């Protein structure tokens, strides 16, 4: 498979479906990040954002926060037959001055432009926040550490 295709998948350059959602040329969709309590069932089977079992509390808005996306997906060949397409938000996910007293352990990244369709789920040790800030630091945007990586081997 061509490595450039992997980055282009993340850029919605290719569409194999006759039921594709509308895209605006040269405008990225808006992605958001929502937090979920430990009892939520948010996993690889999740297809879209849901407010069920989303955290709630002072300073937190249902739906979460917008994901900063200033860096387009890209791709790199690791050999003549393999490569990686990858993307990482260009800023950390920061929930500032919130109080979330029910323990949470999951963040869902989803596409709020495209009917809130799910992109990825990330879990961590359960947390609560009291009049404080919750920060999810994004990894470096490289072929081995990027938040989303599509690879051929």
């Amino acid at each position, binding site marked *: *498979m061509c490595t450039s295709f992997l980055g282009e998948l993340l850029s919605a350059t290719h569409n194999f479906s006759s039921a594709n959602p509308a895209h605006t040329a040269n405008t990225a969709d808006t992605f958001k990040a929502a937090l979920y309590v430990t009892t939520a069932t948010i996993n690889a089977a999740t297809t879209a954002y849901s407010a069920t079992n989303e955290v709630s509390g002072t300073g937190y808005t249902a739906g979460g926060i917008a994901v900063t996306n200033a860096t387009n997906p890209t791709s790199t060949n690791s050999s003549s037959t393999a490569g990686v397409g990858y993307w990482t938000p260009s800023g950390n996910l920061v929930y500032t001055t919130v109080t979330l007293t029910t323990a949470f352990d999951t963040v869902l990244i989803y596409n709020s432009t495209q009917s809130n369709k799910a992109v*990825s789920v990330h879990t961590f040790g359960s*947390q609560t926040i*009291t009049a404080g800030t*919750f*920060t999810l630091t994004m990894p470096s945007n490289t072929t081995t550490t990027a938040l989303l990586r599509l690879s051929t*081997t």
Partner: protein
Amino acid sequence: MIITTTKGDMDDSLLEKKEGSIDNDNEYTTWVEYWLDRELVHRSAHVTLKKSPFLDLFAASLG
């Protein structure tokens, strides 16, 4: 240093500070708490994920 708390902004000299961290295969997390008279008035956490979804793609060979 001024700390945002459930009681409003307070100088940290008035508060008891507790810190901790978690370091495992999945994450590196640090947290800080401020307590006032045995009451938690501030807690922040900072999570760095070490793992992310990774999708392998395959193209079928023809012939």
